[in-house]
């Protein structure tokens, strides 16, 4: 029977879809549960604010949180304007099939796929040694900026390209200069995409270990300036789990903090994008 086979087929499909969804959620929940199971007992306010002791087996992650925020801060302060500028250049000033634009776009796509350890080596050679910044938060932040730029630029460029051409035409018809068109019309419309790109980049930066080992270093003390070495959360986890016997509980607790931060950042960003979209009544976004 036609309907019979259709029903069976339908059921198989539904089953497959649901099982893949189930598998994904299960995997995610398992990771979270595992983290919580092993690390929950270590978590406390004190853990967040105190310094690590006994190579991190005891004490907390205060300085590490500070170093991480500084590294991420440097990364974003550098990456944002450069990323925005390049994206605008690519989307608004190069023609679709222009050789130069294609070259840049192609290079960015390759760069986005380069393993982070390569960025680490590059950052070490350029920032730590050639520019003499040494193992420092600044070197780490700059290296991360290089790493997230390709993602940031490409997502931002796409959000500019997604704006319909009537907006550009009507701005031009009103005699708006190019800069007004970009700043007052296109940028607000591209904002949700820009935010999404930043979050993607930020997430990648927060989770980064390999690129930071060679650039911002291991030192777990409270940094006194951007030229001090500083240990990022992910490196702390790596170090506790691999190099410190008995460091596992604190590694788990640190991982809980890192994952929570990523989740919070994602929630905040989607909330901001939502607000932005509803308050501006953007079409097609």
């Amino acid at each position, binding site marked *: 029977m036609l309907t019979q086979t259709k029903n069976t087929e339908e059921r198989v499909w539904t089953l497959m879809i649901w099982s893949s969804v189930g598998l994904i959620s299960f995997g995610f929940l398992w990771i979270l549960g595992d983290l919580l199971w092993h690390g929950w007992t270590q978590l406390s306010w004190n853990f967040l604010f105190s310094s690590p002791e006994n190579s991190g087996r005891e004490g907390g992650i205060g300085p590490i949180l500070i170093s991480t925020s500084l590294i991420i801060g440097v990364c974003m302060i550098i990456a944002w304007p450069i990323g925005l500028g390049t994206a605008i250049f690519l989307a608004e000033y190069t*023609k679709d099939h222009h050789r130069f634009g294609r070259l840049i776009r192609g290079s960015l796509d390759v760069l986005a796929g380069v393993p982070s350890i390569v960025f680490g080596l590059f950052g070490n050679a350029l920032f730590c040694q050639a520019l003499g910044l040494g193992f420092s938060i600044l070197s780490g932040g700059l290296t991360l900026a290089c790493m997230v730029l390709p993602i940031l630029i490409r997502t931002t460029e796409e959000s500019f390209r997604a704006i319909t051409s*009537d*907006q*550009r*035409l*009507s*701005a*031009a*018809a*009103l*005699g*708006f*200069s190019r800069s*007004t068109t970009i700043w*007052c*019309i296109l940028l*607000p*419309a591209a904002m949700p995409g820009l935010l999404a790109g930043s979050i993607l980049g930020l997430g990648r930066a927060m989770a980064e270990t390999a690129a930071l080992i060679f650039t911002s270093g291991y030192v777990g003390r409270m940094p006194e300036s951007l030229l001090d070495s500083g240990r990022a959360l992910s490196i702390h986890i790596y170090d506790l789990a691999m190099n410190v016997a008995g460091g596992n509980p604190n590694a788990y607790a640190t991982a809980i903090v890192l994952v929570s931060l990523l989740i919070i950042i994602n929630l905040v960003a989607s909330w901001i994008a939502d607000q932005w979209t509803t308050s*501006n*009544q*953007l*079409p097609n976004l």
Partner: protein
Amino acid sequence: MDNIQPAPQLIKTKEQLPGIQTWLPYQSTQACCEPVAHIRARDLSIMYANQLALQKVNLVINKGCITALVGPSGCGKTSFLMSINRLTDLIPRCTVTGQLQINEFDVLTPSTDLLHLRRQVGMIFQKPTLFPFSIKKNLELPIREHGQHARETWAALIERTLQQVGLWDEVKDRLDQPAQALSGGQQQRLCLARAMTLSPEILLLDEPCSALDPISSGIVEDLIVSLRGQYTVIIVTHNLAQARRIADDVAIFWAIDGIGQLIEHGPARTIFESPQHELTSAYITGARG
């Protein structure tokens, strides 16, 4: 809008600019005034890449009149409009040749100040294209961009312009709400108001009513009629009845072998009552097009 009186003067001069309400609607139900040429196209051709879209148009458009461009799709009406404010510059590989003059000013010379030109020549598109901001901000952006008015006078200018398009009473309490929440007809009138904040001399309307329901369309049409005398209006329309109702002059475009051409133009009455070109008569009787 409804107290129609003869306008003392057809064309606004710079001295008259400060108060828009001083320009009275020009009284005309038929052919307009003794014609004063405002826009002159001589052998104007438009090419996209290597494909000719419009060939050798020779057309004079009179000041303060409503000129309707009619003809089937794809015969180059939009292209013609966009060459007048040089929006064609934005289209890659589009070239415009020939001569195009507004008053004595040569539009097509490379040294033309485009921002200035586009302030003089406003344009409305088929689909209302408001920016995703509030009603007020949509009107403020062009005023600010061209910086001709002190900030204190903006509110008054906005009120005047909205009144001109008959939108003030409908939106005065919701100026801070998103412009895109307005109805289609209101949006189209707001687009017109936005162009009018710059006090242009010329308004190019590209099928302004074709995306609207009949009632909104009627309101916008009445509004366009009320612009006669204050602005030189060029309107593209597929609606022959509309052209007949509102136009002083009519230009018929036609694509012959895929190339757009101007086949006939003249006063509306002449075109509709005694067309010269056989395609025109077929078109207006509904036999073609």
